[in-house]
């Protein structure tokens, strides 16, 4: 009997090892497929145009023409676009994270009249698609407040809690912190804001970073709103600049791809810096809601 179990275990172990090897091969294959488009774009950005059109195409450029990037930067004002984009993203991330934390704290910890109603309205707005309110908001910002060709319509919404989803996220996270901590602080005479700043905020730092990253990604990926609110070319963001650049240089693929790669770079950089929080945070959204 024990002999049999031993043999079975051994064969099981062997079959598991082959399974793991197959898995690794599959993962490698898919990882290469997932990275391939990025590599193809990058390798194109380093080639001359005749080399691009050669048949069969080569996977690796003959000479790594980094001068393509210099040429691109002459027309594609990357640094300016990046600066402009940051002018929108940085205040939005800061304001969104702070106001989402304040609201999340109120919903998670404080008792007040009308809490249930306000919370329901908040959760309800989470299911409201962004595009539904686009036109009235556009009219409000540009007609009502006269904010034409300005970043403010893109930034100011983040001063209002940074979206219901982020408030929800912060609230869930605060709820998972033991209440005894606040109570102990209350006994020591700390006020509600003191508790928020000295106990809650340090404990929910990962959630706050995640909210900031979500706001970052949202603005980073947006084209529609930037298109309707920003008109003059010296206010263009990366998204607008690249769209415009592509229109100008329809057939010069190596320069277009160089501009594309330049636009990829900040995202990759931010991701590498915040990778730990990204994964943690996205995991959190999936599990907690």
């Amino acid at each position: 009997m024990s002999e049999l179990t031993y043999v079975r275990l051994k064969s099981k172990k062997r079959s598991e090892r082959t399974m793991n090897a197959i898995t690794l091969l599959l993962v490698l294959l898919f990882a290469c497929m997932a990275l391939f488009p990025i590599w193809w774009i990058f390798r194109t950005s380093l080639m001359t145009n005749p080399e691009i059109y050669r048949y069969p195409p080569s996977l690796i450029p003959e000479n790594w023409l980094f001068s393509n990037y210099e040429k691109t930067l002459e027309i594609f004002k990357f640094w300016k676009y990046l600066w402009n984009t940051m002018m929108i993203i940085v205040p939005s991330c800061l304001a969104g994270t702070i106001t989402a934390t304040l609201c999340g704290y109120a919903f998670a910890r404080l008792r007040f009249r009308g809490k249930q109603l306000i919370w329901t309205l908040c959760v309800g707005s989470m299911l409201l698609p962004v595009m539904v309110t686009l036109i009235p908001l556009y009219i409000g910002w540009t007609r009502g407040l006269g904010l034409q060709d300005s970043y403010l319509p893109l930034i100011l919404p983040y001063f209002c809690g940074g979206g219901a989803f982020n408030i929800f996220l912060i609230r869930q996270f605060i709820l998972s912190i033991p209440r005894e901590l606040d109570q102990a602080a209350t006994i020591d005479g700390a006020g509600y804001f003191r508790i928020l700043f000295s106990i809650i905020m340090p404990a929910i730092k990962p959630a706050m970073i995640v909210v900031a990253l979500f706001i970052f990604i949202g603005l980073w990926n947006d084209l529609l709103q930037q298109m309707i609110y920003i008109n003059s070319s010296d206010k263009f963001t990366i998204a607008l600049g690249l769209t415009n650049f592509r229109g100008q240089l329809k057939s010069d693929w190596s320069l277009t791809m160089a501009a594309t790669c330049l636009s990829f770079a900040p995202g990759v950089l931010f991701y590498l810096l915040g990778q730990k929080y990204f994964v943690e945070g996205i995991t959190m959204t999936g599990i907690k809601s």
Partner: protein
Amino acid sequence: METFYKPPQRRSRLLSSEASVAYICLIPAFLGLIFLTYLPLAGVLGISMTNWTGLKTPEFVGFDNYVKLFTTDPYIKDSIKATIYFAFLSVAGSMIYSLFIAMLLNRKIPARGFFRAVFYVPFVLPAVAIYVGWSWLYEANFGFFNFLLSEVGLNKVLFIADSSYVVPSLSLIAVWLSGNLIVIFLAGLQNVPSSYHEAAEMDGAGAWSRFRHITLPCMTPIIFYNLLLSLIANLQVVTPALALTNGGPGNSSRFMTYLMYDQAFVNYKLGYACATTFVIFAILAAFTAVLFKTSNRWIFSEGGDDK
């Protein structure tokens, strides 16, 4: 419920200040809910009943815009079709792809964190750059995909310039972008108790039946969340049309949100565009409602009966 805990009298002043602290904290949310959410929502409905073009003072026209939209509008039908087609392909594709990748990554493999990062990275790239980059891969004569096709002896395909290929081509990009779904799936898979699998293995259950009867049921809440997330996102698709196709060729990629953009910000028919918005909203709400309605039938909750 609250009667169990009677706060002493002394706390009542504290309590009122607790409420005032709460209201102060919630000022941003109040502003947001009123001015950025519910007032604009009412605004959409109101403006959709007018013939506002942004120049003249708007006149009330009742349901004229809606009638026009459903009887004479040349685009709306194609637009709804294109959007649902795109959303269906993208949601189905990215759900299958991301669950499959997550299951691979959930096995014991070296450098799992690295691979997870690889699959996630497309998600952090700016959307416009992704579409511009992929338009080169899809290029008609020298693009990579046409190179592949010619290698296996097939004819060239105008991926984004051919009305029958444009939506599937854009969907493939959407699938490639579903790195966040992979990360959520992976977290869900790690929460499936391994004791279930061990017990089933003892009873001689094969890999497929373990997947079918353990992994899938335990994952249904996560599947629901991801389904909801990707359905709402994909039904609102607009960036590829703005950055790449301008709704073409023909109307094959004139997605609903792009249609609304075109009416409002290219043709300045604000009232008419609001009617379109409301129709899109109704469609989105219908899809979400169906998903929620059916959810209790297939979502497995631990401790509850599996029905």
